[in-house]
C-alpha cells in the first residue's frame, strides 16, 4: 500500500521508496530522512483541505509530506497485510 493511502493512525512499516523518475531528488531526500525498509511509520494527521499534506511520524520525528511525496513510499500496514 502507498503511504498516501494509509488509514489515519495506523501503524505501518516502510517497504521501499520508489523513484518517480530517474535520479528523483525527492525520493532520495525521503531515504535520507529515514524512509528505508523496515522503519515503522504512522500517519498522524491530514491537512484540513483535501487531506493534504499528511503528517507522518517516523521514529521520534514528524514530517509534513504532500500526498505526491508520500505516494513514493510503499508501506505494509499492520493487520492489513
Amino acid at each position, binding site marked *: 500500500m502507498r503511504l498516501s493511502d494509509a488509514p489515519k493512525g495506523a501503524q505501518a512499516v516502510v517497504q521501499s521508496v520508489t523513484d*518517480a523518475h530517474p535520479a528523483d*531528488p*525527492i525520493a*532520495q*531526500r*525521503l*531515504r*535520507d*530522512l*529515514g524512509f*528505508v*525498509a523496515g*522503519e515503522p511509520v504512522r500517519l*498522524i*494527521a*491530514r*491537512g*484540513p*483541505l*483535501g487531506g*493534504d*499534506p499528511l*503528517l507522518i*511520524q*517516523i*521514529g*521520534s*520525528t*514528524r*514530517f*509534513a*509530506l*504532500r500526498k*505526491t*511525496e508520500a505516494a513514493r513510499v510503499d508501506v505494509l500496514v499492520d493487520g492489513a497485510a
Partner: protein
Amino acid sequence: MSAATMRVALVGNPNCGKTALFNQLTGGRQKVANYAGVTVERKEGRFTAPSGRTLQILDLPGAYSFDATSPDEAITRDVCQGRYPGEAAPDLIVCVADATNLRLHLRFVLEVRRLGRPVVLALNMMDAARKRGIVIDVQKLSQRLGVPVVETIAVQRGGAKALVDRLDAAVPEIVPSPIDEATVDGLHAEVRAILADAVTSTRNTAAIDDAIDRWALHPVFGLAILAVLMFFIFQAVFSWAQPVMDAITDGITALGAWATSFLPGDSALHSLLNDGVFAGLGAVLVFLPQILILFLFILILEESGYLPRAAFLLDRMMFKVGLTGRAFIPLLSSFACAIPGIMATRSINDPRDRLTTILVAPLMTCSARLPVYTLLIAAFIPNRSIGLFNLQGIVLFVLYFAGIFSALGVAFVMKRFRKDRSEHALIMELPSYRLPNVRDVALGLWERALIFLKRVGGIITALTVLLWFLSSFPGAPEGATGPAIDYSLAGMLGRGLQYVFAPIGFNWQICIALVPGLAAREVAVAALGTVYAMSGTDDAVATQLGPVIAHSWSLATALSLLAWYVFAPQCMSTLAVIRRETNSWRNVAIAAGYLFGLAYLASLATYQIARALS
C-alpha cells in the same frame, strides 16, 4: 597551539538547537553577513576559553544531509569539506544532535564523521531527553562513533560548559574516515545498531506534543486557532506600535529642528538637513516599532515550533496558486512592510517558490500605504453606514483584499510561465513544541533590527537627499506665483509625466507628488502638501489637504489614485531588498515592470469606468 585561534564550525540538522548553542557560546558577540553571491547567512562569533585560547565559532546552516537539496545545505557541505572559496576549512567540527531525536540526527553525525576531520558530538537538549525517559550511555555512544561526546543544554545558563571544556582541551585526534561508501540503507542500519546498543527510551514523542497537535492541527479548530492568532498579531502590530511611531516622528522632527536651528532658515543646507536627511531618517525609523512587534511574534512562534504547523495547515491552499505553505509568514510580515517580509522568505527552500513569494510580497497592503488611503478615503468617500458597515471601512477593506487577491492571481500566472516544471517538495519537519528562550528571541530581534536599518537606512537616506535636490533646484524665479516645487526639476518631471498619466486621470499636481513618492509612499502626502503650498506637520497638512483636493479633483481621479496605490511599486527600499535577496537586477526589473503595469491598467480601468458612470 594554546594561544592560537581555533576555528570551530557548528553543524547539525535543522531544529537541533544549534543556533541556541551558538548564542550560548558567543553571547551577543556575533557577526551576521551573507555568503558572497548567495543569500544564505553567515554567522560568526568568538569567545575566549578559560585557558585564554580564542575560539572562533562559525554557525553553519542546518542540514539533513550532505546530499544537498538547498543552497543552505550546499554551503554547509562545502565549508565542512574545506571547499568553500574564501573560507578556510574548520579546525574542528562540532556536530550538534538533538538527544530526543537521535535516530534522525545520528545519521547526519555519521556523514560528518566520514569527512575524516576532527569531530566532537554535542548531545543537545539533554534536559528534555531525561524528562522523556531517554537514557543515553554517553561512553558507549562515544566508543561506537569513535568521536568525543559531550552533553549540552543550550537553553540553560552554563549548559554548554562541558562543550567549552572539551574545546579548550587539545584538538581531538583525527578520526580515520571509514573507507566504505555505505549506502543509505547501510547508514540507517548503523544508526539502528548504535541506538540499540547505547540508548534506551520509553516513548517516541513527548506527550505534550500529541496533546497540542490534536487541537493545533485539527481541520476545524486548527484553522480557527490560526485565524485568531493572526487577528491578534495584526491588532498588536497596529495598535501597540502607534504611540511609539508618533513619538519617533515627533522626536526626529524635534531633533531636526534643533540641529538646523543654528543655520539660516532659508539656506540650502538648512533645507537639505531638514527636508532631506532628517525626513529620510524619520521615514525609515518610523516603521521600526511595527517591524519589531511583528518579528517578536514571529520569533516566538518560530521558537515554539508553531510556524511549521501554520504552514502545514495552509499548504494546500497556497500550493494551488503556485506558492507553498512556507510562504505564509513572509506574506504576513509584508502587511507591516514588504522589506522584512522579503527577508523572511529565506525559510523557503525551493528557489522557485521563494522567488514567486518575493515578487508578490509588495502587493500585500503595507502600512506605508495607509496615510494615502486615509487621506483619499476621508476626502472622497462619504462617511455613511450601509447596513451594519461603514462605507469608508468597506472601501479600506476592498483595498486590502484587492492586494491579496492580486497577489494570488500573480502567483498563479507566474506558475504558468515557469519553465522548470519539476516537482516542488514540501517535506517539512514539524519539531517538538518548546518554550521560547528570552535571550534567543532578544538576540533574534536585535539582528532583524540591525539588518533592516542597514539595508534600508542607506538607500532611503540617499534617495531622499536626491529627491530633495530634484524638488529644490532650480529655485522659483523672481516674482513667481506658484509653489517653488513647480519650477524645480521634479516639477518639470511631473509635468512631463502628465502626458503619460492623463488617461488615468492624474493632474499635474499628482504627477509631481509621484516623483518624491517614489522613494516611499508616505512621502507622497507631504509632497502633495508642498505642491498645494501647505506646510506644517504631516497631520496638519493632511487635514488642510482633504477639503482642497475634495474640491479640485473628480471622484474618478481619487478612485484612480487609490487603485494606483494598491499596485504601484512606490517604494525604492523594497526594490533594493529584492536586489539584495535575489542578487539579480533582472528580478528587480520584473517586479517593477509588472507592478507598474498592473497599477496603470487598474487605474485606467477605474478612471474610465468611474467617469463613464458619473
